[in-house]
């Protein structure tokens, strides 16, 4: 599957395309295979996202998990600062990234 990701123009936050909006949680992301260019162009033109691009992912425990480690770090936050990630309370989250 393919996910569409980018950053929020104003805040810079990493965001994922959910089918009708952008979310900071990769769990909300939907498969965009075949539509990635069209959505990216439209959403960037409307300034709802900055520099969107598609990445490969696969389903993992019912949620999309980016195929590449860089995108997983991007989805979660710095592995060396678990307190600043999106899952600060989950001690196992490091496993999801690596």
């Amino acid at each position: 599957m393919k996910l569409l990701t980018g950053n929020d123009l104003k805040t810079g936050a990493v965001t994922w395309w959910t089918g009708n909006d952008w979310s900071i949680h990769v769990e909300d992301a939907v498969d965009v295979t075949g539509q990635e260019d069209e959505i990216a162009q439209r959403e960037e033109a409307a300034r709802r996202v900055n520099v969107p691009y598609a990445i490969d992912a696969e389903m993992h425990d019912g949620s999309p998990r980016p195929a590449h480690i860089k995108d997983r770090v991007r989805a979660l936050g710095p592995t060396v600062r678990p307190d600043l990630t999106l899952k600060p309370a989950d001690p196992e989250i490091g496993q999801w990234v690596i």
Partner: protein
Amino acid sequence: MYAYDQYDQQMVDARVAEFRDQARRRLEGKLSEDQFKPLRLMNGLYLQLHAYMLRVAIPYGTLSGAQMHTLADIAEKYDRGYGHFTTRQNIQYNWIKLEDAADILADLAKVEMHAIQTSGNCIRNISSDHFAGAAADEVTDPRPYAELLRQWSSFHPEFSYLPRKFKIAVIASEQDRAAMRLHDIGINIVRNSDGELGAAFYVGGGMGRTPMIAPQIRDFVPLDQLVTYAEACLRVYNRYGRRDNKYKARIKILVHELGAEEYTRQVEEEFQHLLDSGVEPPFAELERIRTFFADPAYDEAAPDDIDRSDPDFALWVDRNTVAHKQDGYVSAVISLKPVGGIPGDATAEQMRVMADLATRYSFDELRVMHTQNVVLPHVRKADLNAIWTALDEAGLGSPNLDTIEDIIACPGLDYCSLANARSIPVAQKIAQRFAETKKTATLGQLKLKISGCINACGHHHAGHIGILGVDRKGVENYQLSLGGSEAEDVSLAKITGPGFDEDGIVDAVETVTSVYEREREGEERFLDTYRRIGMGPFKEALYG
């Protein structure tokens, strides 16, 4: 320290206004991201892995207590309570919002700071010796020359769209504490046989994917021609540096492809053109700048002896203080490398501790080192115990300057969108391993440097031990190299062989240090042993 006059202040204020306007036009859609990118980069604003990142300039690494307080306030008000000191003596914030960026620049401008040209294809922040003005071995304080060049290079109309970024370092001593010959231009202020000061120019050094040591192209440029000569170096680069390939666009490639001799010939020719063009500030301007860097009012009666009865304090004094030109004083290094911590990171609270110590004990001055530590440049030996006590309470008292725990590490894949592998966890594991085995002390000076990609922000080419993180089929892998140095004995490290996984690289580092312990003669450093015995024994131990 240099203090702005009305002109300097007007310039940074104008820059804030300009950036506020550019950010507004971006948010309104009048600028595309492609058009905005070079403009935000010239104000240090990146779009990084997790958010916007702001890099604030710390010219030649010098800071006042009030400036450090502002850096702490920014960390709390606009970021997540911390900042990261970099190998170019700057500070980066990792979680910045575009809509706040102009306000941050405005806060910085109030304490004579800015983010001007901390990124982009322009002349970057000028770096220098972190012991400038204090070092026992310096010919003169190099910072007035760095400040002269800072002003010359700020908003330079001709050199703001260079083929690639451009980094200048200025030193003024035999010992090189600023990796001078690994810069696009390295300047060493020297004294000639007539006793006059002048500038030796080294051009075309750098790290990155094609590391090069800068050759000397002029051994003595008179100080009243310094700016003109720099202008000539830059013009030749702006005209003839490669623009067809980003990876070949740095000046080191131009100097290498032309040959140092031909590049020098072209610079000298351009220099002749420029000599009468009036680009050189009057000598009085250099003298004006120099007055800001006069020695502080030292306590001439400062005692020279230190009460070493506390062994932990004595260890810190031995490791983290450096000889000062003034009797009774030292420069004290504040380690931002606690074992298991993130190299170069400091919390807002820690920044305030450092700021207050500087105000109280170091003539209100701090320095950022390219090794991602902070210096209190002028402290009385008699005050060291009070300083150490305060640092230790704030988690800043690690006695590990220039040891294997004092690791340079780039942000790596935890923060950086260019990285291929994480650097910080490797640094943490290595420091922990050597702290546990208590080998740190016996290994002596050992400079270990880690980069998470080929761009080499972690200076791995210049590490006695260097580590480069690469992506091997989606898995982090680490290449080991040995024998680099950024100092006056500059050299580039050589790769040992096949890479290692994350745990394997920690073992590999331990293996090469064991070879050193076995082979070393007398007081030899790791680097000296490597240079004497070569790669063979290390390779043998690593790969059998």
